[in-house]
């Protein structure tokens, strides 16, 4: 399987993966998160686990279970960690711990390395088997740069017990004593249904199925219907552009089982869009990866106008398809969009509208930035690079305090 990436991923990444897999051969690597489908984490894990198995790592993916009270609480903490003000009670935090405790009894937590994804399963560290000398890492995928302090304080009680914390962007890191904090950007899989090459027939089939005419430029944003993704701001940008250039807008997203707010936001967006035939709002099942791929490939410009963002991998997905991109200046988006080189970073709906107009009226510039974007993704945001980084961190944990290790 890993061989399929030869000629697509940088050779250096593949070589290091091979060398590290020799060092870590047969060792166990457990990943735990809170949903099997929906959202970037589940998507990456579904691709990464088979690849780890293929290179001889005994990889396992477990998902914690919880009821609606648990997921309503974790959604609130998610929002509060990204800066919203929410109300919490001690009872809620106790329940959060209880659900994790219940999960700890059902899950086999023994492994040479354990990677816990996001806050939902963070308290599992309290149930770390003590018998073996293993590595426990907490992987934060969300923007915790300006959290509601009391929520971070509560979560930190668990996070500070880990050996290593991994953040997507430097400014999310927390400076916790005794915890090694690393920066590992997430990634896309160039061979998945969401990113592989599609035939023109496959693209046409999707445009016909969703009723999207190809007779005018398409502007697209793909994301959960979440206020932090600013779908209303995207519609505002579209409405400004429409005064100057004829175009159509697609807002496409899917529900996630751990996000109870999605439906309310979707209703709000539909109402705001009104009866404009050129606005297409598509709610798709989470496994519509090929459809998302086709929507991206049929689009002329792709937006990720988030106002809060963990990383915003849809930007890399779009860049991989050589599309000109525009993204909000938050989270990991400026890491993917080198302003003026691989796309444009914006701060407002008006700014997004201006950049859309620039692209629409300068196709040569749009094409050039799209090509540069693809190479930038190849070198920085492919799945193989993330596997390389996780294995490196695991291997490096044996050489604590050293900055240069020879393999």
């Amino acid at each position, binding site marked *: 399987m890993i061989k399929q990436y030869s000629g697509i991923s940088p050779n*250096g990444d593949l*070589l*290091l993966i091979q060398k590290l897999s020799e060092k870590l051969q047969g060792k166990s690597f457990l990943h735990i998160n809170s949903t099997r489908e929906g959202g970037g984490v589940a998507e990456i894990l579904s691709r990464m686990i088979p690849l780890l198995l293929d290179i001889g790592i005994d990889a396992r993916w477990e998902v914690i279970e919880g009821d609606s009270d648990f997921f309503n609480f974790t959604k609130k903490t998610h929002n509060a960690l990204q800066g919203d003000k929410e109300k919490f009670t001690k009872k809620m935090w106790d329940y959060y711990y209880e659900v994790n405790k219940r999960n700890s009894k059902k899950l086999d937590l023994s492994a040479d390395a354990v990677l816990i994804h996001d806050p939902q399963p963070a308290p599992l560290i309290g149930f770390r088997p003590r018998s073996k000398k293993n590595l426990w890492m907490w992987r934060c995928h969300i923007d915790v740069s300006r959290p509601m302090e009391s929520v971070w304080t509560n979560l930190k009680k668990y996070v500070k017990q880990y050996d290593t914390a991994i953040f997507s962007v430097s400014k999310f890191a927390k400076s916790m004593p005794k915890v090694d904090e690393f920066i590992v950007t997430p990634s896309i899989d160039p061979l998945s249904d969401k990113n592989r090459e599609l035939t023109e027939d496959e693209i046409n089939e999707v445009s016909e199925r969703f009723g999207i005419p190809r007779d005018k430029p398409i502007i697209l944003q793909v994301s959960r219907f979440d206020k932090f993704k600013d779908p209303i701001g995207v519609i505002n940008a579209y409405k400004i552009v429409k005064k100057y250039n004829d175009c159509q807008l697609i807002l496409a997203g899917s529900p996630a089982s751990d996000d109870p707010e999605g439906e309310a936001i979707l209703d709000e967006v539909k109402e705001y869009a009104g009866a404009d035939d050129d606005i297409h709002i598509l709610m798709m099942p989470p496994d519509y990866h090929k459809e998302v791929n086709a929507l991206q490939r049929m689009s002329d410009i792709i937006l990720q106008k988030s106002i809060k963002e963990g990383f915003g991998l849809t930007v890399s997905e779009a860049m991989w398809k050589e599309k000109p991109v525009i993204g909000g200046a938050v989270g990991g988006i400026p890491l993917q969009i*080198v302003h003026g080189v691989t796309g444009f970073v914006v701060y407002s709906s008006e700014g997004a509208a201006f950049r859309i107009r620039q692209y629409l009226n300068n196709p040569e510039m749009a094409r050039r930035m799209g090509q540069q974007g693809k190479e930038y993704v190849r070198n920085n945001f492919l799945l193989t690079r993330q596997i390389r980084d996780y294995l490196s961190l695991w291997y490096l944990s044996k050489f604590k305090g050293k900055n240069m290790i020879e393999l």
Partner: protein
Amino acid sequence: MEIGIEPFEFMQCVSILKSTGKFAKNLGELRTLISESGDESIFHHTHQYFIKGLILEYTNDFAEWAGATLEERALAERLSCIDPYILKSVSEVRKKLIREIDGFLADFPEPRDVLTGNEFYLNETVSLVFPVGVTAENLEELLIIVEHIDKSSIYYHFFDSRFRLGEGVVDDFSRWIEHGLGKQYLAEKIRAIDPFVHSIESIRTHIIEVIEAHLRTKKDGTSH
């Protein structure tokens, strides 16, 4: 291959970013950060800037932040002119950075804060160095390998060597070409490639051009 010449062994270097958790929100704080940080951080934000492989406006992270975020372009220009590879040590680079910032602060004593989220975040790296598994025994082989090798290998042999090998040594390629192959003129041509104004890919192209030109002249019987 001539007897006694060690083959050129291609190595690769991959760095993983490690956060120090420290940050600065204005120039005064950046000065403090630079003066108090470990050598690993200064090394990362200056020497390792070139691993990004993009040609941006400035030549180190401090200059980039001063120019793009603080919008102090005069200071960014001064910081960008610091060549970490000709200075003897990381602490020399640190001193030079502080001197430039102090000079600027003397004229503009009231640094303003950047917007939240745009602070300078101090990092360091942990690097893994390993052999690629290919060696060159002569110039022709070196040329073929340079054409195809991963760019992190070019970085290791063209940039990292300047720090790794100490004063006076520029890059691994020219060192091997001069001392291994005895081709001083060609070595000088490679040393003349300015590391500050090219991306890694463009450095690869220049090395290839220089070696190809040399091989052509050798064929024509006009070798140096």
